[in-house]
């Protein structure tokens, strides 16, 4: 009897090892695919599997889904992580404002709205801490980037009570998105020089909270050594599958979204998990734990389908009931990128979002040339344009990042 148990245990262990090996191999294969299968990932002519996607949803359901996603609050896990980091850094500074680091930098992915996450977190945090917040009220990058220094001077002007270092008046200065304070152009870095100088020589009664995109931050470190002026630098953690599930739960419940059977390989790996858990684990995996990417992949995975489970029980003469089904999520293939597109996409990641004229200035190219490339990439779906502002479509971010890292651009692979 004991021997049978031991054999069963050994078999179970072997299964686990095999499952882990398969999982590791799949992860490795996914990471290497840009090199190993470059031909397949780059060929724009390659026909991809036909997708039943969001367009198949009735317009009202589609509008409802998009509306719900747009009104989704920031990821609570991000808010919690920021609040905890701020508590820690603020307490250290509060005890010794003259000597402790007077700033904390919150880094997010370049496709995440860091300003929104920060402002939503700080509202509550400032109430709890009973501190005065001075929010830099820029909503976008100035059209004339040369005016950035005068704008910063105007918005960040120190009041007399703050200037007086003997007074106990403390102030928290918030720069919700550092990307709006610079442009990669000869005169576009003066705003950053001003901020560096204020961090160093400003009043000791000020504590700074700065939000920035990872790619822009890396660039500013290379050219201005910004990190040396700042205190704690904190990157938003990758979202866990449970947190992602919890975050999207209101939408799932409201629209009554069911989850399709996972692919056969996932069924083998996640034998004891239900479809929903398996779906969210896969979604977290492909989105690299980036909330905005996960949301876009979630939307893209939803389709409208006859609910077979219910249909089986019903009379065939009755009209068939349709429901929303979340299929196995996947990221779209990146089209074939020319080197001019790579420079353009890197510039978009560097600045987060920017107008075509600013993009042209940052590339040192003519606006008409840049506009043509933007149109092309927009048609492919890699970039999206809202009004005059252009940015990368979040669902392409992991692949764009990988492609740029492979092509010698300064960008972290992970």
């Amino acid at each position, binding site marked *: 009897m004991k021997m049978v148990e031991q054999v069963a245990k050994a078999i179970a262990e072997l299964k686990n090892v095999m499952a882990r090996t398969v999982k590791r191999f799949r992860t490795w294969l996914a990471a290497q695919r840009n090199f190993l299968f470059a031909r397949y990932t780059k060929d724009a002519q390659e026909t991809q599997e036909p997708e039943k996607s969001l367009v198949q949803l009735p317009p009202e359901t589609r509008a409802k889904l998009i509306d719900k996603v747009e009104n989704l609050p920031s990821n609570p896990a991000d808010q919690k992580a920021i609040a905890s980091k701020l508590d820690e850094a603020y307490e250290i500074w509060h005890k010794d404002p003259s000597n402790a680091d007077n700033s904390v930098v919150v880094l997010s992915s370049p496709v995440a709205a860091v300003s929104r996450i920060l402002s939503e977190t700080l509202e509550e945090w400032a109430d709890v801490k009973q501190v005065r917040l001075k929010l830099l009220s820029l909503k976008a990058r100035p059209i004339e980037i040369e005016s950035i220094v005068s704008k910063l001077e105007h918005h960040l002007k120190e009041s007399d009570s703050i200037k007086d270092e003997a007074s106990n008046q403390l102030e928290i200065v918030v720069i919700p998105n550092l990307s709006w304070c610079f442009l990669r152009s000869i005169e576009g870095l003066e705003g950053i020089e001003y901020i560096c100088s204020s961090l160093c020589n400003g009043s000791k009664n000020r504590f700074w909270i700065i939000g920035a995109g990872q790619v822009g931050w890396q660039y500013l470190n290379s050219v201005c050594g910004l990190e040396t002026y700042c205190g704690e630098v904190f990157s938003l953690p990758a979202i866990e599958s449970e947190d992602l599930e919890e975050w999207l739960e209101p939408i799932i419940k409201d629209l009554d979204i069911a989850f399709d059977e996972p692919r056969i390989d996932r069924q083998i790996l996640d034998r004891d998990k239900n479809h929903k858990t398996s779906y969210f684990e896969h979604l977290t995996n492909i989105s690299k734990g980036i909330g905005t990417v996960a949301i876009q992949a979630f939307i893209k995975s939803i389709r409208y389908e006859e609910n077979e489970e219910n249909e089986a029980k019903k009379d065939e003469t009755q009209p068939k009931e349709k429901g929303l089904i979340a299929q196995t999520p996947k990221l779209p293939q990146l089209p074939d990128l020319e080197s001019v597109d790579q420079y353009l996409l890197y510039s978009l990641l560097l600045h987060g979002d920017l107008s075509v004229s600013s993009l042209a200035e*940052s590339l040192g190219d003519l606006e008409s040339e840049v506009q043509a490339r933007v149109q092309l990439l927009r048609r492919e779906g890699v970039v999206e344009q809202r009004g005059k502002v252009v940015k990368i479509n979040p669902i392409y971010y992991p692949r764009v990042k990988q492609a740029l890292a492979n092509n*010698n651009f300064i960008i972290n692979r992970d």
Partner: protein
Amino acid sequence: MNYQFYLLAQSAGSAAQDAANKTAEQTKDIVSKITPGKVAQAFLVMIATYLILKLLDRLVIWLSERIAKGWRLRVKQFLPFLRMVLLTAVTVFLMNLFLNLSKENILAVTGTIAVALGFAFKDFASSIIAGIVGLFESPYGVGDRIKIGDYYGEVISYGLRSVQIQTPDDNTITIPHNKIWTEAVSNANAGALEAQVVTEFYFAHDVDINLAKKILYRVAQTSKYTSLKLPIVVVMEEKPWGTMFKLKAYPLDARDEFIYKTDLITRAKQTFAKHKLTYPRVFNTEDLELQ
């Protein structure tokens, strides 16, 4: 006396006859029987080798241009080794087909070939040997940007006898490998993706040096082509007619060398004009030529 001469001549004649017979015997030993089948086989092998070489060239170049840039030169520089392996294998096969390759025979054949090539194809042999030495010494590889003599460009092919470079004006220059014995080879990137680009700017002596330097640094730091992983340096040199600034920076891809330089000059000149930086004024062209 005459009789002695006769004997000597006769013995020399018989010695020569013996030597000739011996050589004929040795040649018979070395060369195996040549049949029409063997000739046809050799012919087919040579055609196949030629086709495989062409295919390899195309395949490796195609692959290197499609994969990540970081791998481009590594893949390209693998091509000469592949060619060498293939050519060696084919040579061994052909020798095996027509020659009886015992240890002694190999020595005899290689010695004979070496002597024959040494006299008849001295430069050709020298280039081939230089090509093989070059594979290990690596003064240049495919994808490198090199200067040999007056020619500068990107190495596009590494052949058995010569290297082909493509100049900025899109000319293809063929240079025999044996140049590496006598000429200096300047390699700008030596297998790396980046190659330093030096851009010169000239100002009057009274220029605001700090401002000019700051602009030049910013110009490089904000160019889309600049590789920020590598250093950017501005150096100065005084000349009788003004001050020369050299901006040294690396583009992300050495292929962008000239377009990068153009971008740097364009944006720098726009900014100099904005700040009204003064350029050197040359009154006498002869003075300039003297410098």
